[in-house]
């Protein structure tokens, strides 16, 4: 993997002496987990090119709980996809943990997603033929984690979202809120640095949505995981450390 030396340099090359070390530590603390600079993305619909993002620059710090808000078509999902390494910008630069990811190949990106990123989808995206435990196990299975460790970590992850005892239930035997918590457990089981959630409460009623928000906030707080949540839900936005609004592909 390529490392962007301009960003990593302060971490590995502190200035000499005590002052230098303190400065490096300060830089490290201040270094954002995500750094987007002038990111642009457009989609072709037939013969028409539709801009989705137009020069977005954004820093997201470690452990931050950030909400992306904006009307439909404002570019929230596109920005989320780029942050989650499942889409690439047409222009601009994106650094994750100080690493320029634009030069990584598909396989390296997949491994980075597996190790660093978790996803929570609006429609839960659970595999219907698998139990809750097996759904949570998927990222570990893909990473080749041994069976015993896989089971233990997946159970712990389900416990953490309050679903202990429901391991053997299939998605169709769970409520909407429980399914979304399984999805959160799946996103967290790989011990990611970043979790991206696309409208995680959109399909849930008010009380269930509140529970899901609480679970995510709690996990973010206790594990120091950065959450970036694309949402229309004002309650969700209220619970976030920072709210970033997008309109017509630019930060409002």
């Amino acid at each position, binding site marked *: 993997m390529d490392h962007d030396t301009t960003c990593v340099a302060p971490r590995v090359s502190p200035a000499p002496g005590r002052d230098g070390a303190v400065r490096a530590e300060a830089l490290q603390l201040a270094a954002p987990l995500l750094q987007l600079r002038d990111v642009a993305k457009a989609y072709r619909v037939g013969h028409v090119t539709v801009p989705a993002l137009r020069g977005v620059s954004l820093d997201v710090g470690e452990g931050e709980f950030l909400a992306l808000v904006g009307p439909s078509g404002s570019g929230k999902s596109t920005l989320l*996809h780029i942050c*989650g390494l*499942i*889409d690439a910008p047409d222009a601009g630069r994106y650094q994750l943990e100080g690493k320029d990811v634009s030069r990584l190949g*598909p*396989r390296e990106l*997949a*491994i980075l*997603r*597996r*190790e660093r*990123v978790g*996803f929570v*989808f609006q*429609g839960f*995206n659970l*595999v*219907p*033929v*698998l139990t809750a435990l*097996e759904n949570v*196990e*998927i*990222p570990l*299975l*893909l*990473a080749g984690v041994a*069976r015993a460790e896989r089971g233990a970590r997946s159970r712990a992850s389900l416990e953490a979202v309050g679903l202990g005892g429901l391991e053997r239930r299939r998605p169709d035997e769970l409520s909407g809120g429980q399914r979304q918590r399984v999805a959160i457990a*799946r996103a967290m089981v*790989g011990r990611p640095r970043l979790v991206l959630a696309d409208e995680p409460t959109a399909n849930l009623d008010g009380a269930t949505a509140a529970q899901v928000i609480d679970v995510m906030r709690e996990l973010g707080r206790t594990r120091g995981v950065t959450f970036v949540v694309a949402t229309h839900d004002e309650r969700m936005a209220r619970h976030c450390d920072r709210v970033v609004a997008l309109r017509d592909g630019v930060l409002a």
Partner: protein
Amino acid sequence: MKWFWFAVANVRRNRRRSATTILIAAVGTAALLVGGGFVQYNYALLRRIAAHDSGHVVLAHRDHFDGDEDLPMQHGVDDASLVKARLEADARVIVALPRLQFSGLISNGDKSAVFIGTGIDAEGESRVRGSSLWKLTAGSTLSARPSEDDLPEIMLGKELARQLRVVPGSTLTLLATTTEGSLNAQDVRVKGIYSVGVPEMDRRAVLVHLPTAQRLLLTDRVSTVSAYLRRIDDTDVVQATMAGLFPGRALQTWRDQAFYYRAVRALYNRIFGLLGAIIVVLVLFAISNTLGMAVVERTREIGTFRALGAVPAQITRNFVLEGLVVGLAGAAIGTAAATLISFAVDRAGAMMPPPPGYSVGYPLLIDRSPALYAAAALVIAAVSAIAAWAVSRKAAARSIVEALAHV
């Protein structure tokens, strides 16, 4: 192993569709096995017949097989006893049988016909060929040894016997050109009437004891000496040994002599090869269709897996496993069905109609060779895996965003 059970669970998602596909794979497997078993049985039968007819390795004068003779037995073997003794000293050889091919006219006094005769060692022939290969229609086979007291014995093809209006016990006269070019005659008594199974041969075929033929042709030579082996698989090795023992002689194996076997094999290979290819293509399409639908239906799931860190090869592998589950399930059911069918056919005792040019049929049996069963299961499984790979590889490499947006 986890992925295997995941594949099994996915196959069970749409049970009716999977069951139909498994059924198609099963029918394909059963068809391959029944058809292949039938062909294998026929090949084995024809090999056995061919080897029993000619002998496994045939020794002759170096010009016997290719050269034309100006006089009868010009290209004969003149040390047949020595050749026989040396061949029979080999433990792989059951017996070595000298034969003398000749032709001429056969007459009942009123009517004459052309014959194609063979002088044989009746005792040795019956030892390796048994009586079943000469289908007697009247009388009996030649005595083990020629009689000194009575007229020499003869067996005739049934059509020739009908033409000459003879029955066992009738007297006939053989007329042939001797090795010196003169004509010679020999009275013989009909011992038996038989069918070769080929109408053309039944109109011409004649069998006599070897000394009878030699006396008629005024020779002590024979046309060929055929080595009969304990195991057909030893043919090539024994041929090589014989080439060392008898340099300067011509040697042919039963394969060289088995024109009918080679023709049937070439024909069956084409017919059943084409049928097999059609079956394989049908299975390929059926599995491609089923898994193609599954891939489309699960596009979003593929996107989710990719987002969670799966590389395209892992997605493809999962679908290949599903293809293998379907293919192997079909192969297992098809194998069981083919086994039952083959036992049922065996018990039914059905007969195949006579092949073209033959007057007798042969039993309809289906070979149950483990190698064939393994090969058919392997082919179906491989076809299933290839179909799964082909339909899933594009979807696996598709844009994750597009896959997640799939409705």
